[in-house]
């Protein structure tokens, strides 16, 4: 959500701003410092964060600055033009502008353009463009005329597109507008005619442009108060031909048409623009930020003292002349989302506190405004800065960790993660863990060989992760068939979707016994059944009887005879676990996981029938183990409960009954399950009977207490 913060005034001294306001505000080589050129004779260097001027330079009485001062980022010098033709170049140490380097040019300069990473350009009023170095080599060189007579440059902007400088300027002649795009790598100048569309009478008040990969998006604010967008291709199809461009309406009636001091417009980022002007004819001037993607007003600020209709935007600051003083309004914008655009952000944050983004998008560079730095030099600077950063002791360990993840070896990452986890007390612990996992998983996806398993295990064990926070984690674990990690996820994550649970189940059932031997699965939920069998063998039969399950009891079913033939076989089957303990542990993790029947059932149908049978056999085995003791629980630390076992049996049968019933090897199992259900029913009916008899007993007991409706008793009070 875009937000304007509290404004502050930059200069306490009144600038000698003319009726047209300032000449310009330009960036200097330091991020926080800006060059302000007034319409008279003075250039002032301001440090915004300190709200004070660092230096001030004036030209002699009688001379007039005609072009705003800019900074040559390559040499860290400042350049200004006075009296249209005289170029002055100086640096911070110089005091008097009269004594600095001077070059008199042969033609009038419209503007000097400078962006970081390339040499400044000089745009002449006749439309010709020269590089500064080339110009200074021969200041008196002849400057050709590019634009026609009576054609006036209205606005210009300089971009770097794919490391190549691109200059755009707009001219006007008799109400017609033309755009010129100068590519410096190919030295091609393309001329476009801007068609105003149906509203031919409107005058364009202000321009702004932003650039993406293929187009320069030129936005213009017309006198009818609407904002139009024109897309200008960076690579012209046919440079020779005069081409026309149609503009499309972007925002309607943003400002009122007839404003006293004019209106201004600047693009803040791809989705946001700032507009200066009065929303209604009568009202005071406003600075408003619009989201052009959703066409919504994001925020607005009233400027009661009036403005000069000029607006500059650098970094995070909007500059304007408010009344007589230069005002800075810091501007901040989060990534725009539908929710944000509609003004509803679930996790609102306090203004003023800087919150780390929940997830770092590794595709866009973070911090430091590195976007346009692409020359060798700037790269060097970047590197130096990086070293500085790592040397600073107060750099949070989380940042270090994140950078480690991207480059270092698994071993090193593991050490770093352990170090970070040991700290644990950081306030943004959750977010860092989230970012770390995302970072690790991104890298896993990119490099198939990279699989920092121990790290992931450690991170999962922090209990702060959930499935929805890092859905890729289980996906990768499933691909790698890492059953240990999957088991851990099943135990720790509360929100695993049923499809993933089912995929885990598939792997747990299909993985070979030999590969299971190598894994280090948590055996907490599995009790060593084989030992207990011998100890409790005597008890077993009677206990089962107690809980109502007795296969010998019912004689009605014909399958019984078959069973009775080999009773030893049956007991053997029921008492030995059909799966190895490690697989049992994995399956127990599935049993413990949360699910919703409707969502799980369709996925269960995908599991092969022999695996279903195996799982059913295991569940049946667990049930028998449950029935062995009076409390109907399994031994062990965290065993599956009877309800979980029964629910899964039902689910599996619901999903796969038609398949399982066809399998000869499952026949015995199904018969056993049938008997189990039958015995369950009889148990519950017995329980209900007992309940009723107990109630009768209770009634009898009450009647005994009642001693009838009438009695005579003896009472002694003490």
């Amino acid at each position, binding site marked *: 959500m875009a937000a304007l913060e509290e404004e502050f005034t930059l200069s306490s001294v009144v600038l000698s701003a003319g009726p047209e306001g300032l000449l310009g505000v330009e960036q200097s080589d330091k991020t926080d410092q800006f060059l302000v050129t007034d319409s008279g004779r003075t250039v002032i260097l301001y440090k915004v964060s300190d709200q004070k001027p660092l230096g001030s330079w004036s030209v002699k009485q009688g001379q007039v600055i005609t072009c705003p001062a800019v900074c040559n980022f390559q040499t860290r010098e400042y350049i200004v033009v006075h009296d249209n033709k005289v170029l002055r170049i100086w640096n911070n140490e110089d005091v008097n502008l009269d004594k600095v380097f001077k070059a008199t040019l042969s033609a009038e300069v419209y503007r000097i353009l400078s962006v970081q990473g390339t040499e400044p350009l000089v745009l002449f009023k006749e439309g010709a463009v020269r590089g500064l170095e080339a110009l200074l080599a021969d200041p008196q060189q002849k400057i050709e005329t590019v634009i026609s007579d009576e054609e006036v440059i209205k606005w210009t902007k300089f971009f770097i597109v794919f490391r190549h400088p691109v200059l755009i300027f707009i001219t006007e002649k008799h109400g017609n507008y033309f755009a010129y795009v100068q590519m410096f790598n190919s030295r091609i100048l393309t001329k476009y005619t801007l068609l105003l569309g149906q509203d031919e009478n409107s005058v364009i008040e202000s321009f702004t442009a932003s650039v993406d990969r293929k187009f320069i998006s030129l936005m213009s604010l017309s006198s009818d108060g609407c904002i139009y967008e024109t897309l200008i291709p960076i690579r012209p199809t046919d440079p020779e031909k005069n081409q026309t461009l149609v503009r499309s309406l972007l925002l309607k009636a943003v400002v009122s048409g007839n404003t006293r001091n004019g209106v201004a417009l600047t693009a803040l980022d791809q989705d946001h623009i700032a507009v200066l002007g009065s929303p209604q004819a009568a009202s005071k001037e406003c600075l408003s930020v619009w989201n052009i993607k959703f066409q919504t007003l994001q925020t607005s600020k009233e400027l009661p003292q009036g403005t000069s209709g000029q607006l500059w935007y650098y970094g995070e600051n909007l500059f304007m002349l408010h009344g007589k003083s230069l005002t800075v309004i810091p501007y901040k914008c989060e990534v725009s989302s539908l929710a944000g655009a509609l003004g509803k952000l679930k996790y609102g944050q306090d203004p003023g506190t800087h919150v780390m983004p929940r997830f770092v998008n590794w595709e866009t560079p973070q911090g430091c405004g590195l976007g346009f730095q692409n020359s060798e030099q700037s790269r060097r600077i970047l590197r130096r800065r990086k070293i500085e950063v790592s040397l600073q002791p107060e750099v949070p360990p989380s940042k270090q960790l994140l950078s480690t993840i991207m480059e270092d070896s698994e071993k090193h990452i593991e050490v770093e993660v352990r170090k970070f986890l040991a700290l644990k007390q950081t306030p943004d612990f959750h977010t860092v863990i989230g970012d770390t996992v995302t970072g690790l998983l991104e890298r896993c996806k990119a490099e198939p060989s990279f699989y920092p398993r121990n790290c992931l295990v450690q991170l999962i064990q922090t209990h702060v992760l959930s499935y929805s926070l890092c859905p890729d984690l289980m996906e990768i674990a499933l691909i790698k068939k890492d059953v240990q990690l999957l088991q851990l996820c099943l135990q720790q994550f509360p929100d695993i979707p049923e499809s993933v649970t089912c995929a885990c189940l598939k792997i747990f059932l299909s993985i070979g016994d030999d590969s299971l031997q190598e894994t280090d699965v948590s055996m907490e939920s599995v009790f060593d059944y084989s030992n207990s069998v011998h100890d409790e063998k005597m008890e077993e039969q009677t206990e089962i009887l107690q809980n109502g399950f007795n296969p010998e009891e019912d004689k009605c079913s014909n399958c019984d005879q078959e069973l009775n033939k080999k009773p030893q076989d049956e007991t053997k089957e029921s008492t030995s676990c059909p799966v190895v303990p490690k697989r049992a542990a994995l399956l127990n993790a599935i049993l413990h996981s949360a699910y919703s029947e409707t969502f799980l059932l369709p996925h269960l149908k995908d599991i092969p029938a022999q695996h279903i049978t195996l799982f059913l056999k295991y569940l049946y085995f667990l049930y028998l183990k449950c029935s062995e003791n009076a409390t109907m629980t399994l031994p062990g630390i965290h065993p599956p409960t009877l309800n979980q076992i029964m629910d899964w049996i039902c689910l599996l049968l619901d999903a796969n009954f038609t398949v399982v019933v066809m399998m000869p090897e499952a026949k015995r199992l199904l018969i056993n399950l049938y008997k189990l259900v039958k015995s369950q029913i009889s148990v519950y009916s017995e329980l209900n009977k007992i309940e009723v008899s107990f109630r009768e007993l209770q009634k009898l007991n009450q009647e005994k207490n009642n001693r009838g409706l*009438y*009695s*005579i*008793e*003896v*009472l002694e009070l003490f």
Partner: protein
Amino acid sequence: MGEFKVHRVRFFNYVPSGIRCVAYNNQSNRLAVSRTDGTVEVYNLSANYFQEKFFPGHESRATEALCWAEGQRLFSAGLNGEIMEYDLQALNIKYAVDAFGGPIWSMAASPSGSQLLVGCEDGSVKLFQITPDKIQFERNFDRQKSRILSLSWHPSGTHIAAGSIDYISVFDVKSGSAIHKMIVDRQHMGVSKRKCIVWGVAFLSDGTVISVDSAGKVQFWDSATGTLVKSHLIANADVQSIAVAEQEDSFVVGTAEGTVFHFQLVPVTSNSSEKQWVRTKPFQHHTHDVRTVAHSPTALISGGTDTHLVIRPLMEKVEVKNYDAALRKITFPHRRLISCSKKRQLLLFQFAHHLELWRLGSTVATGKNGDTLPLSKNADHLLHLKTKGPENIICSCISPCGSWIAYSTVSRFFLYRLNYEHDNISLKRVSKMPPFLRCALQILFSEDSTKLFVASNQGALHIVQLSGGSFKHLHAFQPQSGTVEAMCLLAVSSDGNWLAASGTSAGVHVYNVKQLKLHCTVPAYNFPVTAMAIAPNTNNLVIAHSDQQVFEYSIPDKQYTDWSRTVQKQGFHHLWLQRDTPITHISFHPKRPMHILLHDAYMFCIIDKSLPLPNDKTLLYNPFPPTNESDVIRRRTAHAFKISKIYKPLLFMDLLDERTLVAVERPLDDIIAQLPPPIKKKKFGT
């Protein structure tokens, strides 16, 4: 202390009527309760939940809705199609107005209290204007297809929500037209039921309509768009009632399974401003349908078919963790339904539409404490006296000699003369009652059965002379000019000289019966009188109040007795003050003038004025006899309160003679056995 033979009577087959509606009045902190037989009771929640007032029921008048309007005026509406207003001073029905819409199912007073809305069988919603002395029909809203079962006003009074069968309508009050119709899903646990009845609606100030229905759902609707916002399935059976707190931060619903659910508006996350309704607490205090609920600022109140009125305090709203924070379950009326003839050992039981006369049995055996003695003669059911007409009996009394029975309904007063010839009883009605004896709120015979005292609902007290088979009106004490307050409690001294009468709020008046004039008025006290009696010989008037205080006032001296002053100075034992049922009967021992016998529903107590009062450190209730302690210690630890908790719930206890007591119990299990079976829930299996 004393050894008694106790006639333990459990054949009083009294079943309270189920509760149909409750209405809470925030202004006076009173709760009106209507029962299925048409009885309306008013409880004073500030006065220890005492049932102050009651309006007798009527067979043809099933109350379906009850509400307070215009401050403290109480209205009810029912299936006979009439809206009634109750006179809370004179304790009668002020008037009844036919709404001409068939049976009335619902009623709601506007937030300002000046308008009354009723929902009728024919689908009409009718608006009545409340005038100072009556109500006046104003207009009809758009007629709906089926009966209007529930109504709720928007707190601003501009809109109303009306629950019907299968849908909820939202009306604009100004135009009277339905602006939205919200269809309720009939599905119940996946099965489509025939109909979905919207039992209750509540309109919140933010425009949310909450509905409860017969499919077990609590649903939240947006009244602006007419859309369903949220649905909670909370029961397998009907959800029958809903009540919202005044702050709209919590509400309560009652289900047919006897469960009461509390919903609260809680923040989604801590310190977030976004809030949502969450089902917080279930309470299972009822066995049967919870027909009605109310939400007082500090408590959830519920009532239903199982006849209990349950007041469940919200612990987070209770500031001091005192006895007010305890759950209250009120089952029995706080007035006497039983009278006793000491001379003939007869008990007269009062039911809604009949009286029963029983003769107690006898025994010749003796025994020690706790023994049950063999009966030589069992109790006899002598008489079953059915009333004529549809009206419930208000009060009844049998004379001490056993030869007179008097009872009254709203419109008629009956007096019977009983003749005993060996085992035969003959009953003769005394005809030609004077017209002023029409409706009695309380009837009392003098000790020698020669005088009958009747408190009429006009505030007058009548004295009637009885002799032979006839009667003679002696005098009527008219109420003080300007007051119409009805007298609910009467007490007469054993010598017949003094008559004490108490109303619902003003003090106790004592009249001199010989001189036929007002003798004195006992200083008024904050809490209503629950029971009073005049001691023989001393003529001390003992008064019990609903805050469990007991005063003794000397009528001849016109001042509180020394003992009473001592008690007030020292204060009662804290456990005594924490009892939650009022004392309903006081009597005296003829041979032991220092003893006062009194009881509430859960204990019977003899106060021995000669013994020291217990302080908070001593044990108030000591059920075990001292065994091997010496007499000295016994005397030292002995205190004035001798309490027995053997008999409960105790509806009546009195002294028949020096060594014989009669105790009438009504075990709750016997009541439950007579109720329709509750919805059965399975304990095992699926």
